[in-house]
């Protein structure tokens, strides 16, 4: 039995002990414990070292707001989760946790030496000190600072867990399952609404879980929770999500929830994901997010054993753990009295309740009850400091006189110092939804104001003081939200609740200290980022007035806890220092996530093979069997080359290129975008869109089309065939398919509503096999029927319908290699077999499958451009050498006015030309710059760049395309490509290197 565990009571399961390990030592707790509760039960208060000063830190809170007790949970080498709050980790058999930010050990930490130099680590220290020399920042300062400061270590191995995601919709989403949230969910459900209720804890009940003696509708609170939970669980229209944090609010009631599914299990089943990210779209949202108790700010307030009063109460009532033997209670709100009463009843000696308020403000029911119970109470007190090293051992109290003077009052021995500075409503999500906040001066905190979206707040977040008020507020919000969402009314249940009232208001800021005296220790405002009152005062002295600036200068509120316990105290302190009211100082912005969310849950299933759709063409399996090498082109897997035996890339590509030039090659062109443009005005539509004149294109013929953007720059290209008067088959680049389709649809719907035309994507309807080479016709001849393949009947740029191997075929006579070429389109389900049939029939003609690499070389030998490689979004058709495609007689097309701009007509624009290296064996680097003269000093006068560069096997030399200023006029000139070690001389040539008169094409 652990020393500090009570003999009975609490919500833990004493019949199920669990063993766990913290920093190499074994401990025992019970099912239902958090790691913090189980360690406290064993008397462990020292859990970590602070971020900046490496000060010993313990457990401040009992929930999500915990700033100090951050630990790493280790399952195995790949499963290390740093920076988890010990107050939220459920213990399980075999749990292994480690403290952070200490070396070599938690008790003896060399980093604590920072504390000795604390005077030299004021606010803005890093900004001021490590600015110069600038080069040292990346090399020296940043790595060292990160190593010294880092909270926890990320695992170095890929995350082996699965993460799931899902979308959900509901009428009413209730965030928080405390009394108000449970009442709200019940209210909304009673009106028949679809309800989702989520809570970050493993069990519902919220603040009730830490209450003793509360009753609701004549039931003990614990029984009421069970009954309420059962009623909701039995309703098929209600989804209950424990262990689920609503971490972010996104526009229009889209709320992000993170459900933790297996973190609490000793042996997680392989079938379960670790977490599930929910994207909930709710008609109405209710924030029943409660309130968080504030620490008091005084010197030495960060010692282990200094704890929120509500946390001590929670550990006792919920977990059966005494947080110490002898407590001093600093009361800045009545909540401290309620804690003192419970602790006294639970066997903890209460040395004194030191109320930091004036006598008149310490008169609530809780204070009266404490006095009636015989607890010692003093008012007008302040805390001047604490003693102890790794655990508080005493507190030095002062008394505030009527004139504001402070004199020492007493030094009391204690092993736990409880404090309550009042409560801060958890307005995070309300504020994220752009809801207004109002400062409630009487309560001493910001409370929700007008909502900006269809949301409402209920219960503690609205600073309700009593259990009855919270329940009533929740029930009313529940039925109101259901009515707003569904139109169905229901009466709000009237709860009869009994719980001694403890008013929760307080005064944010720091406790008064003697004027002029140097405090004996730092008074921490932000525990996680080690920000003290001195830092805030320094920031003000240095001229920072806005809280947004003070926040960034001091980093207060910028830690992973986002200032849950510190924000309002920082505001209160700055307000007091500058003699302003808190709302005048302003408020920093709340941002998601409420508590940290794993990267895994955001990534979800989008990793590895499922990161993105992996699109395969009909020839894919055949290529795999042949040992082909693939490359990624957008989402597509395309065959790059087909190595034979141990062939290198260069050898394979040379062989494939020569095969096309000498015999015949086959290539899977299925990825090309295809759009069927149909309608009476199809030709008019394409005339307006493309630069070409389509009116003159006869059915059965095709033409190379160019699409520009408004500004006149080349956007896409492809062969367009006219299948009938009112039907065109448009091909696009592989990568441009979706955006060209979108552009067309945009023009049809918004600009040219007068046209009778429709577009349909047929990219995936057709498998396309390019058959290129002098023997292409011979291969086809034995396979097709219903088509006359002769040059007269099917000349270059003609299209015909027929059958291949008995299945329907659309046959294009086109070439992207400069050889006699066909593109065989078959319905895609026939693609794989057609591919295999052509390959088999081609054996007699030495057919060679080729990939994208050879395709690139072949087209470059012919000077055919690739949009996006030889053009870059700043090239006009003339720049790219394809101005011949423009229909000169056309009155307009997209980009025509753009092309008329003077700058686009200058003769010194970059133009696409060929480059031939003087040394034919040198292959230029794609992207290399081109200069006019050799040996230039930096900065060189660059006049262009290489866009494509290959070894051409048929020419036995290298070839390149380049965009050169005034390039065509430089034909014959020698230019230079500066590379490390040498300037490579090149000669400017026309961009067509092979078969300039096109005899092979028209064969």
């Amino acid at each position: 039995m652990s020393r500090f565990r009570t003999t009975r009571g609490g919500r833990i399961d004493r019949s199920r002990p669990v063993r766990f390990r913290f920093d190499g030592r074994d401990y025992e707790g019970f099912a239902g414990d958090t790691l913090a509760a189980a360690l406290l039960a064993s008397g462990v208060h020292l859990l970590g070292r602070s971020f900046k000063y490496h000060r010993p830190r313990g457990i401040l809170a009992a929930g999500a707001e915990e700033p100090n007790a951050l630990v790493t949970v280790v399952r195995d080498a790949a499963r290390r989760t740093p920076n988890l709050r010990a107050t939220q980790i459920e213990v399980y058999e075999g749990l292994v946790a480690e403290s952070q930010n200490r070396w070599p050990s938690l008790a003896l930490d060399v980093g604590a030496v920072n504390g000795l130099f604390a005077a030299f680590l004021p606010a803005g220290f890093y900004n001021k000190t490590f600015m110069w020399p600038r080069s040292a920042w990346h090399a020296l300062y940043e790595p060292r600072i990160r190593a010294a400061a880092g909270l926890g270590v990320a695992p170095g191995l890929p995350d082996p867990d699965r993460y799931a995601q899902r979308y959900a919709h509901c009428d009413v989403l209730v965030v928080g399952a405390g009394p108000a949230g449970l009442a709200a969910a019940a209210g909304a459900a009673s009106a028949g609404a679809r309800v989702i209720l989520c809570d970050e804890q493993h069990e519902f009940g919220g603040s009730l879980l830490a209450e003793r003696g509360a009753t609701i509708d004549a039931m003990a609170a614990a029984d009421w929770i069970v009954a309420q939970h059962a009623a909701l669980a039995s309703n098929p229209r209600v989804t209950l999500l424990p262990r689920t944090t609503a971490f972010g609010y996104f526009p229009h009631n889209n709320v992000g929830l993170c459900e933790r599914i297996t973190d609490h299990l000793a042996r997680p089943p392989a079938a379960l994901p670790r977490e599930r990210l929910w994207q909930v779209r709710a008609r109405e949202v209710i924030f029943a997010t409660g309130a968080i108790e504030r620490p008091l700010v005084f010197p030495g307030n960060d010692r282990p054993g200094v704890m929120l009063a509500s946390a001590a109460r929670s550990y006792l009532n919920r977990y059966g753990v005494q947080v110490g033997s002898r407590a001093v209670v600093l009361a800045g709100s009545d909540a401290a009295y309620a804690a003192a009463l419970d602790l006294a009843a639970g066997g903890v000696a209460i040395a004194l309740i030191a109320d930091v308020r004036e006598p008149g403000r310490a008169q609530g029911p809780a204070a009266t009850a404490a006095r009636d119970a015989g607890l010692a109470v003093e008012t007008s007190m302040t805390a001047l400091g604490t003693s102890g090293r790794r655990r508080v051992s005493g507190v030095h109290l002062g008394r505030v006189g009527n004139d504001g003077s402070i004199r020492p009052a007493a030094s009391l021995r204690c092993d736990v110092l409880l404090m309550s500075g009042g409560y801060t409503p958890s307005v995070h999500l309300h504020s994220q939804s752009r809801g207004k906040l109002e400062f409630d001066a009487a309560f001493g905190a910001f409370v929700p104001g007008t909502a900006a979206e269809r949301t409402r707040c209920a219960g503690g977040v609205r600073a309700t003081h009593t259990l009855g008020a919270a329940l009533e507020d929740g029930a009313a919000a529940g039925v109101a939200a259901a009515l707003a969402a569904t139109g169905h009314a229901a009466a709000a249940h009237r709860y009869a609740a009994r719980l001694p009232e403890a008013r929760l208001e307080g005064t944010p800021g720091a406790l008064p200290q003697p004027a002029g005296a140097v405090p004996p220790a730092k008074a921490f405002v932000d525990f996680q980022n080690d920000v003290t009152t001195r830092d805030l005062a320094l920031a003000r002295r240095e001229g920072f007035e806005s809280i947004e600036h003070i926040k960034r200068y001091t980093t207060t509120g910028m830690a992973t806890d986002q200032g849950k316990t510190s924000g309002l105290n920082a505001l209160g302190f700055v307000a007091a220092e500058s003699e302003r009211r808190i709302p005048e100082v302003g408020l920093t912005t709340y941002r998601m996530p409420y508590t940290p969310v794993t990267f895994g849950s955001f990534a979800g299933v989008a990793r590895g093979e499922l990161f993105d759709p992996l699109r395969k063409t009909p020839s894919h399996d055949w290529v795999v069997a042949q040992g082909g090498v693939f490359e990624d082109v957008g989402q597509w897997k395309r065959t790059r080359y087909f190595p034979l035996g141990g062939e290198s890339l260069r050898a394979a590509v040379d062989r494939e290129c020569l095969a096309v030039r000498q015999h015949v090659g086959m290539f899977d062109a299925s990825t090309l975008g295809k759009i069927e443009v149909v309608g009476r005005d199809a030709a008019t539509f394409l005339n307006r869109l493309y630069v070409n004149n389509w009116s003159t294109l006869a059915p059965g013929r095709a033409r190379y089309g160019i699409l520009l953007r408004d500004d006149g720059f080349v956007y896409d290209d492809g062969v367009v065939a006219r299948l009938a008067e009112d039907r065109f088959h448009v091909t696009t680049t592989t990568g441009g398919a979706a955006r060209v389709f979108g552009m067309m649809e945009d023009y049809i719907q918004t600009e040219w509503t007068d046209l009778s035309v429709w577009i349909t994507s047929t990219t995936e309807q057709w498998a396309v096999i390019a058959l290129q080479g002098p023997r292409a016709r011979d291969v086809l001849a034995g396979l097709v029927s219903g088509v006359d393949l002769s040059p007269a009947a099917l000349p270059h740029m003609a299209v015909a319908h027929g059958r291949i191997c008995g299945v329907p075929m659309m046959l294009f006579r086109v070439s992207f290699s400069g050889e006699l070429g066909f593109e065989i389109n078959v319905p895609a389900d026939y693609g794989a077999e057609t591919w295999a049939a052509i390959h088999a029939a081609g054996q007699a003609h030495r057919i060679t499958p080729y990939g994208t690499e050879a395709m690139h070389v072949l087209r470059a030998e012919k000077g055919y451009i690739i949009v996006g490689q030889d053009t870059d979004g700043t090239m006009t058709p003339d720049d790219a050498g394809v101005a011949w495609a423009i229909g000169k007689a056309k009155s307009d097309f997209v980009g025509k006015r753009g092309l008329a701009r003077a700058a686009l007509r200058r003769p010194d624009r970059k133009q696409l030309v060929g480059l031939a290296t003087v040394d034919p064996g040198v292959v230029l680097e794609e992207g290399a710059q081109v200069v006019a003269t050799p040996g230039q000093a930096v900065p060189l006068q660059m006049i262009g760049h290489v866009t494509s560069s290959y070894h051409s096997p048929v020419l036995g030399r290298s070839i390149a395309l380049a965009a050169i200023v005034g390039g065509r006029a430089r034909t014959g000139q020698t230019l230079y490509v500066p590379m490390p070690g040498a300037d490579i001389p090149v000669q400017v040539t026309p961009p067509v290197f092979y078969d300039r008169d096109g005899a092979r094409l028209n064969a």
Partner: protein
Amino acid sequence: MPETLQRRPPPVEGRGWLEPLPAATRFSFRGGSGAIEALSRAYGVPLPTAACRAASAGPRAALRLGPDEYLLIAPAAEGASLAPMLATALGSLPHSLVEVSHRQVAFAVQGPYAEWLLQSGCPLDLDLGPFPIGMCTRSLFHKAEITLWRTGPTTFRVEAWRSFAGYVVELLADSALELPA
């Protein structure tokens, strides 16, 4: 000449919650009211006038996917005869009829967890109230476009473009790991 080739859609492996559906004949039909009437008569299925609703008669179905856009789904065997028949019926009425039989692959997601499985990647509300039997729409499943048609209380017909089908099925299978055996 080789024998006529067999139609082979991308394989989809059946499992309890997933049933591959047979290859089909599909057309994307666009047109105004005159063409819609003519097509309804010829096709034998009155094209639905309500948004995002499907109608069927025997093995033929029509899904209204946009203001003037319908997806026609018919048995594969009707492929050769249907196209000329519909084209004749439509005549010179303004319309677009494009065959997309092979563009997409169909399978049914079925059983008590059908909705739950689809909600893992589809952002629409698939509850029987807002997404009743007979409702159909284009939507997303993670990063892939799908066409979704609820054919029963716990049955959805899912159509995905052929190169996206594997992605959609694999992601569904990932979710299905959680299903009770």
